């Protein structure tokens, strides 16, 4: 970043090139997106396809604005977020402790590992009809599907993270008189943190996919997945595309902001980045 010196108010010699490179890449990205938008707009206006199937960009944006303004989109998004966070939270509550226990105690590992490796390859969506029968249409089914989708990446990564904590660190900490409690919080958790966060990232990505899919099939009145699927009945492609924009935006915010910040707060502060790659 170029800094402005207080006295002169003139940008100090621009940190060479950084801004220029960044600007160039922004300009290129903008060009490419504008180009794609122009192609889409031309296609939509050409009249080859029915306007109901291929709405113009202004129509989509107007719809998006209208839905945001009257609050329906906010409600849909909140329902979806509630389901995904509930399911994902549950997955963390189960996945992280179980992963740690599996890595620390051979007996727990012996019991759960075969189950995990048998259940992991079953795609969460295949359980959807079963859960629908058992729990009916609504929140419960969706939350459980999200839970199923995100538990395994979290569990698996936590397990391999704790297992891969350098035994030398454990012995060194033990030799310096760390008790079990300290060993756990000061060595094992920071050591395994890159893996745990990777697991959480993967888990969230999967829950985000799972919640949209599950809502399409199992939600009753609210939710971004439901609104997209419902819009099909009325040929409202503008509603669909507006919701897809919101879905993409929320996913982006979580990936970049939430997990990015989490990573900086934990992994990087504990200086574990190199270990994660090594």
């Amino acid at each position, binding site marked *: 970043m170029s800094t402005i010196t207080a006295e002169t108010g003139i940008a100090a010699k621009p940190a060479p090139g950084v801004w220029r490179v960044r600007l160039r890449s922004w300009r*290129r*990205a903008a060009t490419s997106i504008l180009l794609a938008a122009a192609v889409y707009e031309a296609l939509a206006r050409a009249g080859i396809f029915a306007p109901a199937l291929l709405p113009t960009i202004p129509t989509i944006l107007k719809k998006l604005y209208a839905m945001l303004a009257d609050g329906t989109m906010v409600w849909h998004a909140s329902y979806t977020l509630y389901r995904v966070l509930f399911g994902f939270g549950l997955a963390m509550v189960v996945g992280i402790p179980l992963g740690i226990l599996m890595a620390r105690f051979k007996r727990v590992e012996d019991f759960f590992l*075969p189950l995990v490796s048998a259940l992991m390859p079953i795609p969460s969506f295949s359980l959807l*009809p079963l859960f629908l029968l058992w729990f009916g249409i609504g929140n419960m089914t969706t939350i459980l599907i999200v839970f199923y989708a995100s538990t395994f990446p979290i569990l698996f990564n936590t397990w391999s993270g704790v297992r891969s904590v350098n035994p030398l660190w454990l012995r060194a900490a033990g030799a310096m008189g760390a008790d079990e409690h300290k060993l756990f919080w000061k060595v094992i958790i920071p050591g395994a943190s890159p893996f745990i966060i990777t697991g959480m990232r993967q888990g969230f990505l999967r829950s985000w996919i799972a919640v*949209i899919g599950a809502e399409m099939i199992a939600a009753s009145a609210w939710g971004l997945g439901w609104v997209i699927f419902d819009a099909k009945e009325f040929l409202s*492609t503008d509603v669909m595309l507006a919701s897809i924009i919101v*879905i993409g935006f929320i*996913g982006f915010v979580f990936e970049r902001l939430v997990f990015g910040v989490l990573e900086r707060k934990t992994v990087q502060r504990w200086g574990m980045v190199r270990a994660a*790659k090594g």
Partner: protein
Amino acid sequence: MQDAVTIAATPNAGRGAERLRAIWRNAFPFIVLGVAWEIAAWSGIFHHRLFPPLEEIAQTFVRLTLDGILPHHAFDTLLRLIAAFTLAAVAGVTIGVLMGRSRRMEDLLLPLVSILAPIPGLAYAPLFLLWFGLGNVSALLLVAVVSSFPVIFNSWTGVKAVKEIWLRSAQSMGADDQRLFRHVILPGALPYMLTGLRLGLAQAWRILVAVEMLASVTWGLGWLTFGAREFLNTDVMLAGIATIGMIGLALEKLVFEKIENYTVVRWGMVAE
């Protein structure tokens, strides 16, 4: 990494007792789970139709397999998976390599790919259904689009990771474009590409079942389990889920782990 199947598959220096113990150790959790299921099924807390005992599920599984219904569904699902994945692999590698080799393509496509990739593919499902109708075309295209993103990203990274010095030395030794590509770029990028293909296939498998439910194809395991709901055929549903699980496990063991081992053995660790 250890897990159920590899432990069971290593005979441990041929000692029978050791092997038996390993098998027992792996079977034990399933036996516990099975017994718990049976107790729950027979206790009458849940309705019999909603929670059938294991022997009924097994019976249905055998019956459907002998009738050829289950194999037909499984075959169609696999065919769809292979077709969609082939589409994704060809398109993904082509786009990825183009992006890696040509600056202009990279500038043009990278922003678009980075915007589209993080959107859950299933969100496009209703849109595809409107555009291409119910059935196979939508299902194939949707799965192909979704699974092509990891392939594109990894092929692109792989081509970019080919060392500049290899390219220059090959060029100075008189390699033309075609040779450069076949003998330098492709081998250099291959471990990344394989990783991308593995991720793409895994993703295709995960959403294919849901896509089959939404697109109402005539045959397919997703449709089988979803359709069984209408008639409260929980046993059929669970037999379908078991088949899906077996295919998933087979993919994991026969495809993903093979590719992973191959890349790791052949090129050392994939990540630097």
